[in-house]
């Protein structure tokens, strides 16, 4: 039986890694994910797991060591944040292109400059096209649950693609919450043994990893890789169901919170969804048809399913915890708006950037978004497609 524990999101990630007990963890410390490898090191020192912990000199080396260990045939995990994730960039593509099912915990954080160590999605949104599966958690429980499921998703023979389980830096990584830690053996049984496809260490069947592909081969390999990533969508649903049967918490591609008849809908991901649910609850008490569409799987992006989930919406606001960086809107906004282009209802969609560099987002800010959506639905007019939440000064 599982037990209720009061621990941080980082500890939730570390416990998931302890129970999975991968062959190798190669990691380099960076705020706010440092406590993950730190806890893993402690678990190893205490004899609670026998993972080979490789303490490298940078995140570039951490991901490189992960790639080597995974190519050798090991089950491999790591953790990082922000600039560390950015330093891995080159190797993230090599992990996904080599189809190595590495699983990484990311305590999502702002990127410098200006120097800031607090939570936002600049790191994972910047890396959204590195070919990794991206699962995003709302709280510590989901952080733990997602990492366990990520192993099964990534290692599925039709997928064989690395996966990251992201959770908001500080809001989740350092906040103590009550969540359910499952029984060690049940988790081990759930993730099962890993059988690599082409392990380098199998000298009976020699294999080459990391060979070059000239112009007459590269294209075919990249499309073959894409198919693996796209296959993850169905596997996420399948593993989410299996997880539900094993532990009582079922997961899908997204969470539809009070969405059945929702007319005013916020689409968001991460810890802000907790605040948004509270606001939805109080609006519902007052008869306002508010809803939240919480993104769980960002890559591969389940655009069709998300568009269907928004079919009752009269106005939609997408919250991005990242700067649009010169695009029409944030990363999630452009995906959602594009998904809705083919929908019959095609509701108006607006975009907010919020929470950059750890800026607080409170119920009053979420309330202002629903107020805006009501006005848009009533007047049919969008005066501002893009705005900011809790920014000093008026934007645009």
């Amino acid at each position, binding site marked *: 039986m599982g037990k209720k524990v009061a621990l941080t999101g980082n500890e939730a990630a570390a416990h998931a890694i302890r129970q999975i007990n991968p062959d190798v963890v190669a990691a380099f410390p960076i705020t706010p994910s440092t406590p993950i490898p730190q806890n893993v090191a402690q678990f190893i020192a205490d004899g609670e797991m026998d993972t080979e912990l490789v303490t490298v000199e940078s995140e570039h080396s951490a991901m490189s060591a992960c790639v080597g260990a995974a190519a050798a045939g090991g089950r491999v995990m790591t953790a990082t944040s922000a600039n560390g994730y950015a330093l891995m960039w080159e190797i993230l593509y090599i992990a996904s292109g080599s189809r190595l099912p590495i699983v990484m915990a990311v305590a999502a954080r702002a990127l410098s400059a200006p120097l800031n160590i607090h939570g936002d999605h600049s790191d994972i949104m910047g890396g959204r096209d590195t070919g990794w599966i991206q699962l995003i958690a709302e709280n510590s429980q989901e952080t733990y649950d997602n990492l366990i499921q990520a192993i099964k998703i990534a290692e599925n023979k039709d997928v064989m693609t690395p996966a990251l389980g992201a959770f908001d830096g500080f809001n989740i990584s350092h906040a103590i919450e009550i969540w359910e830690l499952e029984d060690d053996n049940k988790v081990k049984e759930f993730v099962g043994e890993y059988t690599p496809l082409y392990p380098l260490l199998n000298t009976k*069947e020699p294999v080459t990893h990391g060979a070059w592909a000239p112009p007459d081969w590269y294209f*075919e*390999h990249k499309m073959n*890789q894409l198919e693996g990533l796209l296959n993850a969508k169905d596997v996420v649903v399948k593993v989410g169901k299996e997880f539900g049967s094993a532990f009582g918490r079922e997961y899908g591609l997204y969470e539809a919170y009070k969405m059945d008849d929702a007319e005013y809908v916020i689409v968001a991901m991460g810890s802000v969804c907790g605040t948004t649910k509270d606001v939805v609850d109080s609006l519902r008490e007052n008869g306002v048809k508010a809803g939240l569409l919480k993104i769980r799987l960002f890559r591969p992006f389940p655009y069709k399913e998300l568009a269907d989930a928004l079919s009752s919406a009269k106005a939609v606001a997408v919250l991005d915890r990242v700067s649009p960086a010169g695009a029409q809107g944030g990363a999630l906004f452009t995906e959602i708006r594009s998904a809705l282009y083919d929908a019959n209802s095609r509701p108006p969609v607006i975009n907010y950037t919020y929470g950059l560099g750890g800026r607080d987002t409170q119920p009053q800010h979420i309330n202002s978004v629903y107020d805006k959506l009501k006005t848009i639905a009533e007047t049919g007019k969008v005066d501002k497609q893009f705005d900011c939440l809790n920014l000093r000064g008026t934007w645009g």
Partner: protein
Amino acid sequence: MSEKLLNWDEVLIGGAIKDPGNSKSYETGSWRVERPVWNPESCIQCMFCWVYCPDSSILVDENGKMSGIDYDHCKGCGICVEQCPTKPKSLAMLLEADAKGKSEEDLRKEVFSK
């Protein structure tokens, strides 16, 4: 190149290669601008060229002796010529364009008979 070009759904995942050493079938010799020409008369069989060649393009016979150059793979970097210790050198670079259509024997004479 003699390999069969496969479709995207036929390639091995992750660009893995199950027949290691298949780079042999990729003839990098076509990249060459200059080629090394060997003079067996002055060669002292020190094997420096074999040690230094980055493309394993120095041919070795069954007795372990330097026996020529694998022009299907030699990229013409000239490292073997740099390393050859004999005076005069037993390897010399020649423009590929000037070597076209001539036998190895003729080239040897042309390069080393001065």
